[in-house]
Structures are given as structure tokens and as C-alpha cells.
């Protein structure tokens, strides 16, 4: 009865040795490789040889790994590495640290839904009796509508409706900020606490709010004129322009 080489353990072992060493070439190598896929005994024989020989590889002195190798691997497998939170919060976003992301969503919802609805109900300023105004609907840190701010477009007064109060110490005050599209924060001035209040603006609203995409409120010491917020915002939301813009 005819037998084949791969039925002889000695031959398998000899070829496994040559295969593992790397000196089995050409068609013989390919045939042996193909057989390994269906013959676990041949596969094991090859790895038994590697177990004998691998000490030579393990004995290699490690090389210094080039910088960025892990980053490349991570990027290849998992996509771009997440930027550390502190770095990701560029511009004005860093002031929103303690405020849940949902609050921003609420602000966006209020700003993007209420405003168009308002416009659809009343039409644009060109068609309605409502004056051209700036309106901000700001959410609290726990994701509730907290503050509505409005001013006539050319007005010098800010009207404030406080839906949810936040704690403000006797020596502190709420302080209004604008945030432009680049995230630059600009202080406007103190805002009184109370259900319905108003405050004088230092300049015409158009000059203060025209470039603003967001309005935010922090708590600052009374009588101060901070260049940057001294803490997290307690209210924040979109700044809407309640009039028909050119091309809209």
C-alpha cells in the first residue's frame, strides 16, 4: 500500500524543522504550509521547533521604540486618540466644565426651536409688530430652562426673566458674558437676581451682542470687572437675533 511523506512522523518532523528554521523553500514550503491548515499535528510539529529555537529571538537586545509608534497603532486600530479633556475644552468650552452636556443640547433646542417657532407665529420683524431684539434662552447646570434675556436690537436695556434661581452670596453677583463663534469670551456686566429684572447695558445691544453666538452667566464678586469668568457658568444658552437676516 502506497504511503505519503506526510504519513511519516519522522519526515514531518524533519520538514517541520526546516520550515521553522526558514530553509524550506519554493513549492515544498507552500505544500507544507497548506498542509498545516488541515493537519494540527503538522502545525504542532512546527511550533515545537519554534519552541526549541525561539530563545535565539528572545535573546535579541531590545531596540528603542521610535516615538509615536503606539499612537500610530492606536490610531490604526481604534481611530484617533481622544484628546485629553483639558485640551479639548478650548476657548469658551472650558468654562462649561461642570455643566452637563445635555444643558448645551437644551440651549440649542430652545435657541433653534423656539426662535423659528416664534418667527413662524409672528413672522419676521419686517412683517410683525415685535421689535427687532436679541433673545437668549439660557439653561441651568441641571439642564432646566433658567434665564431668558432680551434686549431691543438698538436698545440700552437688558430685560431678564429668571426662571430658576441660583445661589448667589451677598458679596457676589451674576455676571453676563457673550461668546463669539471663535469661543472668545467677552464680559458684559452684572445681572441682578430676581424673577423680573432689568439692567442697563454699557453700550447699544447691537454692539455688544451682534457677534455673540452664546450668552452665559457666571457668579463673580460684586464691583468686579473680570476679564475671564472666575468659575463655571451657572446659565448658558444660544443668543438669538429676532429679526429677518439678509438672505434668510
Amino acid at each position, binding site marked *: 500500500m502506497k504511503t505519503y511523506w506526510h504519513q511519516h512522523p519522522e519526515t514531518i518532523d524533519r520538514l517541520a524543522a526546516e520550515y521553522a*528554521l526558514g530553509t524550506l523553500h519554493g513549492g515544498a514550503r507552500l505544500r507544507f504550509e497548506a498542509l498545516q491548515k488541515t493537519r494540527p499535528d503538522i502545525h504542532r510539529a512546527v511550533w515545537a521547533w*519554534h519552541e*526549541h529555537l525561539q530563545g*535565539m*529571538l528572545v*535573546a535579541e537586545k*531590545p531596540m528603542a521604540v521610535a516615538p509615536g509608534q*503606539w499612537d500610530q497603532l*492606536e490610531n490604526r486600530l481604534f481611530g484617533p486618540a481622544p484628546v485629553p479633556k483639558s485640551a479639548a475644552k478650548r476657548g469658551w468650552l472650558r468654562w462649561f466644565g461642570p455643566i452637563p452636556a445635555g444643558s448645551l443640547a437644551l440651549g440649542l433646542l430652545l435657541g433653534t426651536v423656539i426662535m423659528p417657532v416664534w418667527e413662524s407665529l409672528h413672522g419676521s420683524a419686517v412683517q410683525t409688530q415685535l421689535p427687532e431684539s436679541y433673545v437668549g434662552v439660557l439653561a441651568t447646570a441641571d439642564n432646566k430652562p433658567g434665564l431668558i434675556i432680551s434686549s431691543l436690537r438698538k436698545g440700552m436695556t437688558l430685560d431678564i426673566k429668571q426662571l430658576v434661581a441660583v445661589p448667589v452670596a451677598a458679596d457676589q453677583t451674576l455676571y453676563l458674558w457673550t461668546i463669539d463663534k471663535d469661543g472668545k469670551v467677552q464680559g458684559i456686566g452684572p445681572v441682578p437676581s430676581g424673577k423680573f429684572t432689568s439692567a442697563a447695558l454699557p453700550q447699544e445691544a447691537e454692539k455688544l451682542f451682534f457677534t455673540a453666538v452664546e450668552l452665559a452667566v457666571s457668579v463673580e464678586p460684586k464691583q468686579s470687572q473680570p476679564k475671564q469668568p472666575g468659575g463655571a457658568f451657572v446659565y448658558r444658552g444660544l443668543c438669538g437675533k429676532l429679526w429677518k437676516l439678509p438672505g434668510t
Partner: protein
Amino acid sequence: MVSNEEVETLMARVDLGDRHAFKQLHSLVAGQLTAVAMRVLNDRSAAEDVVQDVFVGLWNKASSQAAPVLKSLGWLCVVTRNRALDVVRKRPAEVPLQWKDADGEEKSHDVASDNPGIFEQLQSEQDNRQLQNCMQQLEPAPRKALWLAYCEGLTHVQLAARLQCPLGTIKAWTRRSLMQLKTCMEMPA
């Protein structure tokens, strides 16, 4: 010195999808694997690519499923070395092992390495003491042939050119050396 136990533990965690362990493993063995690939490829960039491929395969469990042995540092080295050899086999031989320069002088790539020899390295590894002992029992020339074949991936023909020996002699050396090595390695320590 990389602890094999540490590698095995990390590999087991990587099998479970632990990304932190995966990063630790990379930090621990990437240098070793780069050296293994570099020995075969003699090209830093290609060696780094090979190591990346090994880690990608490891994470995707592409290579680990084909492991009939415990996944250790040695296993990783073998996988890396085999992948590096695949790269070598696919690329055309660009530089001959020996050539004549413009003055007709014979040149050879077989120059002494600045790195410590394999036996000096083996001596420094406790786990490799048995392999070192067995390798020392081989004649110097066959021993060198074995090492060049396994670590640098040289073929019989390349070994013959490198060691300035007939092809038949090289084949006989490797075959005999492998069997001697096996017999020695399988003897109780």
C-alpha cells in the same frame, strides 16, 4: 529584562479585549519585537511596520487563534520573525550579498556586527541557558548557519554565499544541527 510571566498575563488580558493591557504589552515588548524584525529586514521602517502588523493581528486575534502553544514572549518573537520573513520573501533581492566595487575589489555584507554575539546574549538569559548549552555543542560553522537562518532568515543559497561553503554542505549542516539541537533540548535539564 522582560518577564515572561508578565507578558503571558498581559496577553491573556489582551485576549479579553483589555486595551490598557494591550498598551502595557506594547510598551513592554515593542522594542524586543522591533529588534527581531530588524534582524531579518535590516530596515528600521519596515521592521516597525511588521511590529505594527503583529500587534494589529494580536488585537484582532488573527494570529493568536493559530497558536498551539502558550502565548509568551517567545511566541510573539516567532510571530514577528515569521511576518518579517514573509516581507522579505515578497520583496525582490535588491542588494547582493557579495559584489565587486568599481576597483574590482570583492565586497561582502557579512561584516562583524557591533552587537553582542548571540552566545553572549544567550548567556545573559536564564531561560535560554538550555538553548545556549545545546548550541554550544554544535560546531561553530553549523551553529552560525543555524543562527543566521533562524534570526536573519537566510536561505540555503544565501547561507552558502555568506559562509563561503558549498550548498550541499550548508544543507547538511542545518539538517544535522537541527536534529542535534532537538535531541539536546529534549534531554532533561
